[in-house]
């Protein structure tokens, strides 16, 4: 990893002055630290994708296959025929500039190719050249350009410099969605074997072991049991989750990050405590042990292949419905893709909370409920005894994750839960939350060490808003409902606002939950004293 600037230096280095040359003539920078490392060939081979021998984006010659132009042209054509979104978004942009400064990567880097409009023009210029009359006749006057290796390099740099957060699409008068553009761009690059390792390794892992982190079944069970020991130590309550159990009412699926890495693990503990306390008849699966789906960042086919496990496992185990944990892009896949790809889910029942009797009509077809909906419903019906004062040392704010916000609209459920489990809650300024929320800067598979400079820049707008409530209200805890956030926000906070920690909302639920038969709590789920004075 290359050293990155100090926060103050980075902030002062942001320069919105534009290059003298038009963007078409500005070569792409591939110095170390600017690009994601390419995938290892074995991952492509394991997934039967186009495999490419070892290479580096820093190489002058990327050794593209001899017919690479034809591959891109045909791939482009195929996608235009498959997606109306792509066709319309290629044609109707008026370059009004409303999106230009809505991208966190533009705000943090000042690089004009990070303006959503230009990111899309990278693809559009080739579209015009290959598929429009005006582009064929007028060439560069009509905004067309020839497909050269430099264009492919530019695509690689900038389609892996977009976190598919869709913030720009909120402001676009035509709803042009850069995530859609980036997804198509990445699919095209994948046709040439140009994938990044931080995405494709998790994908290959997930395909084989059921989860991105490659946790094998026995290890998955051991890790969960380890949490149960911790919970017993903290609360005195013994928890016995089941695995791969046929006949359970509910299958619970959460991102494997919650099983593997702090602070997600505390959120996992929160789920386990909640389910034990309410006596939920549920099971965990080691096969469908991943809620997230890095296939979304690879191609729609790969997304489908990974996602299929959820329904297949639900069917094999004979559960009635599926409950999903806190995760961002996981919920984009569930809400906007899952049943279309792998449905119909006619072997499941319309989800109904066994405790409150609430029928989740909004999940009537996919049969999958978000844990924030489920818990909010429990709290609303007074099914939980909560002691929010156990979270009193935290002044909490909430980071709306991109996908639950802009591809679903899960905004008030997590806030309702938070306000019931902690006494000090403060929202960030309105143009930085809800549908206008800023990305953590590391979404869509960019949470990789080698581009730390870019990640800190991309996360700046989020951190800046956190700093605002930190200074104003003393906020010291950033709650979120996304496993990528729980991995990406701690280094981001550590860099820009080091006094602020990161938590999932069910960690705070776990702290506040008064369980039957529990001992007096003196420590929280992190095994730190409940009250700061005691430190």
């Amino acid at each position, binding site marked *: 990893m290359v050293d990155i600037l100090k926060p103050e230096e980075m902030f002062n280095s942001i320069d919105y002055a534009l290059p003298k040359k038009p963007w078409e003539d500005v070569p792409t920078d591939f110095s170390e630290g600017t690009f994601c490392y390419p995938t290892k060939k074995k991952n492509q081979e394991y997934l039967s994708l186009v495999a490419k021998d070892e290479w580096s984006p820093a190489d002058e010659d990327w050794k593209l296959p001899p017919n690479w132009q034809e591959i891109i042209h045909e791939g482009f054509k195929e996608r235009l025929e498959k997606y*109306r979104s792509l066709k319309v978004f290629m044609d109707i942009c008026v370059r009004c500039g409303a999106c230009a400064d809505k991208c966190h990567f533009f705000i943090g880097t000042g690089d004009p190719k990070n303006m959503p409009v230009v990111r899309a023009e990278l693809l559009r210029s080739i579209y015009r050249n290959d598929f429009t009359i005006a582009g064929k006749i007028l060439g560069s006057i009509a905004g067309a350009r020839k497909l050269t290796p430099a264009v492919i390099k530019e695509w690689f740099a900038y389609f892996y410099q977009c976190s598919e957060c869709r913030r720009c699409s909120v402001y676009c008068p035509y709803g042009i969605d850069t995530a859609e553009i980036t997804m198509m761009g990445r699919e095209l690059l994948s046709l040439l074997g140009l994938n990044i390792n931080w995405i494709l390794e998790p994908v290959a892992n997930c395909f084989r072991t059921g989860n991105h982190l490659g946790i*094998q079944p026995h290890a998955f069970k051991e890790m969960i049991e380890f949490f149960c020991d911790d919970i017993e130590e903290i609360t005195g309550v013994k928890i016995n989750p089941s695995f791969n159990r046929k006949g359970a009412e509910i299958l619970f699926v959460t991102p494997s990050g919650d099983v593997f890495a702090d602070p997600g693990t505390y959120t996992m503990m929160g789920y386990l405590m909640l389910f034990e306390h309410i006596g939920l008849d549920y099971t965990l699966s080691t096969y469908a042990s991943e809620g997230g789906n890095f296939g979304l960042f690879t191609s729609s086919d790969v997304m489908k292949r990974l996602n299929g496990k959820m329904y297949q496992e639900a069917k094999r185990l004979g559960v009635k419905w599926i409950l999903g944990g806190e995760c961002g892009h996981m919920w984009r896949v569930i809400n906007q893709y899952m*049943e279309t790809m792998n449905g119909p889910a006619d072997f499941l029942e319309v989800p109904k909370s066994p405790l409150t009797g609430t029928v989740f009509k909004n999940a009537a077809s996919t049969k999958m409920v978000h844990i924030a*909906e489920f818990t909010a419903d429990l709290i609303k019906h007074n099914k939980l005894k909560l002691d929010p004062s156990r979270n009193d040392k935290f002044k909490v704010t909430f980071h709306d994750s991109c996908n639950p916000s802009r591809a679903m609209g899960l905004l*008030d459920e997590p806030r309702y839960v938070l306000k019931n489990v902690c006494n000090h809650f403060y929202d960030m300024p309105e143009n930085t939350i809800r549908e206008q929320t800023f990305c953590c800067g590391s979404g869509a598979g960019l949470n990789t060490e080698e581009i730390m400079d870019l990640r800190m820049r991309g996360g700046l707008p989020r951190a800046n808003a956190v700093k605002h409530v930190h200074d104003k209200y003393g906020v010291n805890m950033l709650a979120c409902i996304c496993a990528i956030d729980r991995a990406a926000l701690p280094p981001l906070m550590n860099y820009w606002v080091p006094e602020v920690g990161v938590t999932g909302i069910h960690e705070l639920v776990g702290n506040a939950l008064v369980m039957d038969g529990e001992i007096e709590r003196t420590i929280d789920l992190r095994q730190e004293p409940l009250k700061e004075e005691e430190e």
Partner: protein
Amino acid sequence: MNVNYLYSLLAVVVLGLVAYVGAGSVGLQGVFGIFIPYLALVIFIAGFVNRVMDWAKSPVPFRIPTTCGQQQSMDWIKQNKIDNPSTTWGVLVRMFFEIVLFRSLFRNSRVEIVGSRLSYKWVVWLWLFAILFHYSFLAVVVRHLRFFLEPVPFFVKALEQMDGILQVGLPGVFISGVTLLAGALLLLMRRILIPKINYISKAADYFPLLLIIGIALTGLTMRYFTKVDVTKVKELTMGLATFHMGIPEGGLSALFYVHLFFVCILVAYIPFSKLMHMGGVFLSPTRNLANNSRMKRHINPWNPKVKFHTYDEYEDDFREKMIEAGLPVEKE
């Protein structure tokens, strides 16, 4: 001087000269008054239909609305039924706001570095200029229906009355003509003066604006200064509308033909340009779909067959470890 607007300005000036000389000095009034308008109209209709059909030919495989508010959830959580619609009605209202009031543009903000912080300011200018421009354009187009319909329909007359409410000048000033020019000039200035917007602007952005400015300028000049013979204009346009083509006796001024030629170019240019946003805005899948894909299954017509890694394959891979860990297996 930016080459993008230089090209566009040059193109508009040359086009204007072509009509001025062609219809004026050379006297090709039939070509510019009859043949080109029909040709432009045919290109427009065929091109527009073709483009929309081409869009419609591609399916919408996934339901991908950009949700801009609270989803439909439990009954006690208030849904934002417009910005996150779950019904067709909601979508219709959302589209209405989008198309008629430019709702998304209204959200626009600007980022600024203030000291050691980022700050965001709500900015209304782009929305305001866009509204001014588009509604002026619409009013001007509707007013021009007077030239193609006899008797003049009531709504055209009503609009004229409203448009002329200022009651200044003779002939009375129509507000929309002036605001169309102002709107187009403001949008052009924005592109030239704001560095970011300048950087992303292409010839294809300047050309239609300059063309429309040309149309407005020639139109205003004819109405208020050179006082074009409106009866003769109507004779020509009614001839076009009723297929009784003919050039009025004594002909029309060269300026009129410049105006008409600009309009023809614009109309014929629409299907091949970004001006197709007028049709595309209706077809954008992030706006025109309900966020109801958890409630109702959305079908992808090309849903591919893919290779899954089945549970059986998984168990084969890990069976011994699973048994050892006490995990249930299908085959012992």
